[in-house]
């Protein structure tokens, strides 16, 4: 499913300058960064509560194109700036991680 469809279905708010609309097949949910490094797959969307700068490096290394930050948490400017320069999209949502993951799972498996 295209990222743009996911954005509109989950009503995600884009925090970086832009995003690249691409096919998304799956997602990974974790707030442990080593777990994401070990188990997320390239091309997946990452759902997390973490908002600090290191999430951008993790996404860059894992070729994760988009990060969804839940519970209305907002990353600091530095994180957003770094993500923009690395070509990684960051979105926020007021959904909880459970709700965001559940809705996305339904979208991607229907």
């Amino acid at each position, binding site marked *: 499913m295209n990222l743009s469809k996911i954005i509109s279905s989950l009503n995600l708010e884009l925090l970086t300058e832009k995003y690249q609309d691409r096919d998304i097949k799956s997602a990974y949910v974790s707030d442990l960064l*080593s777990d994401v*490094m*070990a188990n997320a797959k390239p091309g997946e969307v990452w759902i*997390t509560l*973490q908002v600090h700068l*290191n999430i951008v*490096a993790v996404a*860059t*290394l*894992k070729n994760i194109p988009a990060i969804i930050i839940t519970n209305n948490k907002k990353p600091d400017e530095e994180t957003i700036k770094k993500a923009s320069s690395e070509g990684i999209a960051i979105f926020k949502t007021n959904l909880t991680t459970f709700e965001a993951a559940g809705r996305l799972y339904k979208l991607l498996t229907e």
Partner: protein
Amino acid sequence: MKLSETLEGSFSLIGGDFSKGGAASCELKSILEKLHLPEDIIQRATISAFEAEMNVIIHAIAGTMLYSVTPERIKIVVTDMGPGIPDIELAMQEGYSTAPEWVKEMGWGAGMGLPNMKKNADVFNIDSVVGEGTTVELIIYIPKEWRSHESQ
């Protein structure tokens, strides 16, 4: 970029500087991408490099990451001036961590770093002296198929 001879370089790492966390490994990744190495090889090299880099930032005062790439393998050596590891066998256990609470809140310090390095590298060596520091050596072999494909 073509890989005909050894390509090497180094990065310095500063303990406690989380704002630079992953910077060396991300740069290493872009170097490896320019060599057009297979994606899974780049992933394994950079994941293990990133874990080693974060260990220096979390635990040590300072360190270096040396890399050298030949057509046969990627070698990464991360050396730090740090507290050292008294019991390496214990430190290798998944879930064991000595990271402070605030580092755990950032999502690091889950006790997965050393096991992740071991899982992703073909060769994993660790040497540590308490009160002096730790050295981690990681080797990832480049498949023969890729080498013969590249030389055509």
